[in-house]
């Protein structure tokens, strides 16, 4: 081994872990699921026969697929809109001279470092029908306890609250970092021009953090499409749980994928769902990019 060879190869070796990992855990599964989706494929027995695009045709006429898609969209809206608004508010509050800044930042991020399974288990207890904390709070207002899993609206709300709990602080810190990189002179100029705090926020801060807004919306949307652990655990261990409720009222796309792949062992159909999910993510990412750019651009 000569020194020359070493010089030429080493840099590639240093960057190779990413590409090797991406090939093994990203590219290969992607291509393999694509191949599986063109087959009738049993999880245990393997490929049964080549069916071309039949799985895709079935999926497009499958009412459970559209139900899962609608649930996913509904939970995404209920979760993301308040989440990002609250994150902006928290970031604005933290973006001021504060005592114990680092401590505040840590507190805000804390919910995000708790494992999702723990979060889901605790919240599912809080939303318990018979002994839940939520039922107790409702009773102060004379309201009857709610069977959270039994109705679409309450289940979507419950799942969305879990998602918000986990991600609001994370997004707030992203916004905060972005806000702190907005040049102070702009704020000072706005103040000299007599702009109110709200006006300054709208006209200086928001345009200043535009790339970050775009980023959080895209990431939340993709995260929302892949929502699984929270609703799955919210349903508990019963037959209702695995399908997202007795009438699939909170079954998300990934839950439907899981049901097909690991409960019916229909790996081909599950692979089809994951490819459609992949396409949806790609479309959403581009639409989001265009929309957010326009919306914030006007401010």
């Amino acid at each position, binding site marked *: 081994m000569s020194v020359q060879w070493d010089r030429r190869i080493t840099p590639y070796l240093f960057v190779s872990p990413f590409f090797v990992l991406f090939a093994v855990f990203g590219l290969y599964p992607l291509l393999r699921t694509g191949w599986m989706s063109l087959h009738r494929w049993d999880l245990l*027995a393997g490929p049964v026969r080549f069916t071309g695009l039949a799985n895709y045709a079935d999926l497009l006429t499958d009412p459970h697929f559209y139900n899962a898609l609608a649930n996913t969209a509904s939970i995404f809206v209920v979760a993301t809109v308040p989440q990002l608004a609250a994150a902006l508010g928290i970031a604005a509050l933290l973006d001021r001279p504060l005592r114990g800044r680092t401590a505040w930042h840590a507190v805000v991020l804390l919910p995000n470092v708790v494992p999702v399974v723990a979060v889901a288990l605790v919240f599912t207890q809080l939303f318990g*029908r*018979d002994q839940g904390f939520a039922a107790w709070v409702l009773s102060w207002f004379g309201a009857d306890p709610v069977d959270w899993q039994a109705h679409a609206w309450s289940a979507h709300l419950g799942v969305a609250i879990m998602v918000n709990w986990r991600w609001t602080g994370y997004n707030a810190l992203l916004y905060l970092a972005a806000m702190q990189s907005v040049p102070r002179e702009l704020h000072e100029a706005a103040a000299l021009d007599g702009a109110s705090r709200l006006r300054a926020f709208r006209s200086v801060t928001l345009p200043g953090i535009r790339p970050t807004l775009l980023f959080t919306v895209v990431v939340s949307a993709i995260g929302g499409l892949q929502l699984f652990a929270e609703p799955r655990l919210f349903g*508990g261990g019963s037959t209702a749980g695995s399908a997202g409720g007795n009438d699939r009222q909170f079954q998300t796309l990934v839950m439907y994928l899981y049901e097909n792949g690991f409960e019916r062992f229909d790996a081909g159909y599950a692979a089809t769902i994951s490819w459609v999910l992949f396409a949806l993510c790609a479309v959403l990412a581009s639409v989001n990019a265009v929309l957010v750019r326009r919306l914030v651009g006007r401010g």
Partner: protein
Amino acid sequence: MQRAYRTPWLVAALVMVVAGCGGGASGDGRLRLTVATFGEFGYDPLFEEYERAHPEVDVVGRVADFDSHHKGLITALAAGNGAADVVAIEEQYMPRLRQSADRFADLARFGADGLRDRWAPWKWAQGVAADGKVVLGLGTDMGGLAMCYRRDLFERAGLPTDRDQVAALWPTWEGYAEVAERFAGRVTDARFTDSVNTVYTAVLNQAEENYFAKADDSFIGATNPNVKRAFDIAGALGAKGHTAKVATFTQPWNVAINQGSFATITCPAWMLTQIKEAGGPAGAGKWDITAIPGGGGNWGGSYLAVPAQGEHQREAYRLAEWLTAPEQQKRLFVDDGILPSEPEVYRDPVVLQHKDPYFGDAPVGRLFAASSDTVRPNYRGVRDADVRPVFGRALGRVEDGAQDVGQAWEQAVREARDVLR
């Protein structure tokens, strides 16, 4: 030059790390065998005994809940990696896994064929594949059906508490439904039974055929009167609010047992341990056991199998063979009420005379073991597991108050046909 040597070292280190992930030896050089079960198998003391008799073996138990256990097993089988050396399989999953019998060691290779006479014939038959040429699993327990009830709640409802008198209240499921009405008229802070689906499963399991025809495995769930009858009986209880709406084996179910939120539960033999665990010492003496309406039936029961991916199949088989041997089955029944599936054991006088102090000295030997010879096994279709949850969720909708029994039934039949397309 020094640097040039580093890469091979790195590779070597990586290889060692990767190699370290496999293996089947514990730190002290003993052979490690893992046994994956679900719920309550009562195996821990048996593992210790096996290790004492075989000092070269280290037995490690892995316990999960029913769903996680079977899903994990299937994932590991599909991946070809990660399954335990000995795995428990519940009877519901047998038809499906029989389709992939090549993923398991054929226990006939190790001489399991010679053990055939240990088990009740139907129990043996459920554990084999390829018309009996391949032995997939060795039978553990079975799930003879009885009815557990709370003496304290029955007393408050002005109902008899003596187990023979209670049995006389409900020779049929219609009688059971009448008692539910009487109970609800007197007690308002507890429900009559735990959930629609527990009753449904019990009634369904009293029939030999349910969703699929024994003759040709065709779907008969929509027309089989046994299915409709079980659905109507259980659905009516749910629609009238006689259930505590807690799904079996979930956290709320455990809490409900602990707090005495329901008065009766259809209990297969293996459920007794779960009731004890959930009820704790405070529940001792409050429960009792009596005959189930409609006379006998079997719900569940499991097998021990050896995945073909294991490195120590012969040793794993020896362990499984020992765990399912008559001496161990007898001990599991006396200690934990786990019902044996071997005639030699369930006809044993010690087993027949066994009483359970937790359940008010109920004669569990007489109640469960004595009826073992008359157990009629259920025929499970290959796609049983695809259809079963559809009907389960339909009854859940009745219990949620979202649909009436008729609507739920219609939707279930439609969905079942869709699933089977």
